């Protein structure tokens, strides 16, 4: 299998799937054209991420990346969530195949997008968000056919 056991475990049993009716911030990144969309719902109270849910359209590593990312930020402060990098996601998953690393980037970005939404709605400024770049990565290869 190209994926680690950890990835497969999160793919099989993704944590925190769903939506939050009363989300403080919602962020969506990716697009259907590229085959990956992640949507993050955050419920933030007193600077703490009380609850988090996700919806993902995408491959196994996209789903696993979303799932583990929610675990990594749940109960953490907004600052801690801000400092979550895609590398941390990859490491928490015991690695991702090179062509799949962009999924971890999407997870990082989805969280930041949700925090941005929260920041806008609540008027609470979050350090480091302004200069964040939501660009798509494009380190993709060639399609195999057989």
């Amino acid at each position: 299998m190209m994926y680690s056991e950890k990835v497969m475990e999160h793919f099989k049993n993704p944590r925190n799937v769903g939506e939050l009716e009363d989300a403080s911030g919602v962020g969506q990144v990716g697009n259907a054209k590229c085959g990956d969309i992640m949507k993050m719902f955050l419920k933030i109270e007193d600077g703490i991420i009380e609850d988090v849910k996700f919806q993902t359209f995408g491959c196994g590593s996209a789903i696993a990346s979303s799932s583990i990312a929610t675990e990594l930020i749940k109960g953490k402060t907004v600052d801690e969530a801000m400092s979550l990098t895609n590398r941390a996601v990859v490491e928490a998953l015991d690695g991702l195949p090179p062509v799949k690393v962009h999924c971890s980037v999407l997870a990082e970005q989805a969280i930041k997008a949700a925090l941005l939404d929260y920041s806008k709605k609540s008027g609470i400024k979050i350090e480091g968000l302004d200069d964040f770049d939501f660009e798509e990565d494009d380190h993709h290869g060639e399609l195999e056919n057989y």
Partner: protein
Amino acid sequence: MRKYIYMDNAATTKVRKEVLDEMLPYFSDNYGNPSSIYELGSTSRVAVEKAREQVAKVLNAEKNEIFFTAGGSESDNWAIKGVALRNKEKGNHIITSKIEHHAVLHTCQYLEKHGFEVTYLDVDEYGLIDLEELKAAITDNTILITIMYANNEIGTIQPIEEIGKIAKENNIIFHTDAVQAIGSIKIDVKAMNIDLLSLSAHKIYGPKGVGALYIKKGLRLDNLIEGGAQERNRRAGTENVQGIVGLGKAIELAYENLDEKNEKIIYLRDRLMNKIEENLDYIRLNGHRTKRLPGNVNYSFEFIEGESILLSLDMEGIAASSGSACTSGSLDPSHVLLAIGLPHGIAHGSLRLSLGIYNTEEEVDYVVGKLVEIVDRLRNMSPLFNERKTGVK
């Protein structure tokens, strides 16, 4: 061990027991080089020539029109580059389609870099080329038409006989990649005016790494692999004797009781399709409903992505395939699904189930059950599906 259900017979097939049995003596007992004059050599020679007969017979070709290769890709490369390079004084134009296998497409692209011009014919929503467009594409410079017999992803069968006629009328060489058609469709290279035909053993319960190119008598093309005098000076390299023996046996068996086998496979295919269509919404059948390979089933499932379907099926012990980009880390989904007009988003959510002689009704029913569960589960996870439900966006 858990039962394993293999529904990816278009990717490759298991070597049949009868085929392996036929091959086994050629590893450590009859291991002679067919070019050697001694007894052990001629035993190998005889085996290779028998296989050549077996291949020739099913194509209605002559024995000396069959040349063994290392598989479908080599056959495609040889046919296309060989004709192009041999005829470059005559013309530099090649006609193919947008849904060819990469062994054809990439070869054409390679030739474009070396001064050739290639027309990539569009296909309709079912994957069929338009014969009028083909005729219109022909110029005085056209030296080769290469159109696949049947598509590997969506199973669409092209009107090969008509294409052969057009090629013949215009005095243009006609190659067809029949890697997917072989073993499922009766092929008569003479009646169909086929000049070159590629095939591969591992799609018809033969071994991997061996195939053949049919070259019509008298047709000259450059060699791809130069060297020794094997294959009548046209394809060098010590013959893959055991593989060739396997190909011969596999192709012979494939055409035994073909109608009967196809009937069974088509029954399973239709059952699979009917059950999928009954149990799932927001799906699209890819390919043509009747001009379709017996074993091919290909659907797009809206709102979800193909690799996650494959992984989920794999967790249930089901092997299948997808035209999704994510399978290979590419940004774009399959060129075939795009060519039949699928939007990227939907193309990403496609699944190919390809049936073979070993599949059963029980397996079909099991797969549908699991597939419905999986699609539901993944859709419930998908923002696209939830948007659609709630009408957001």
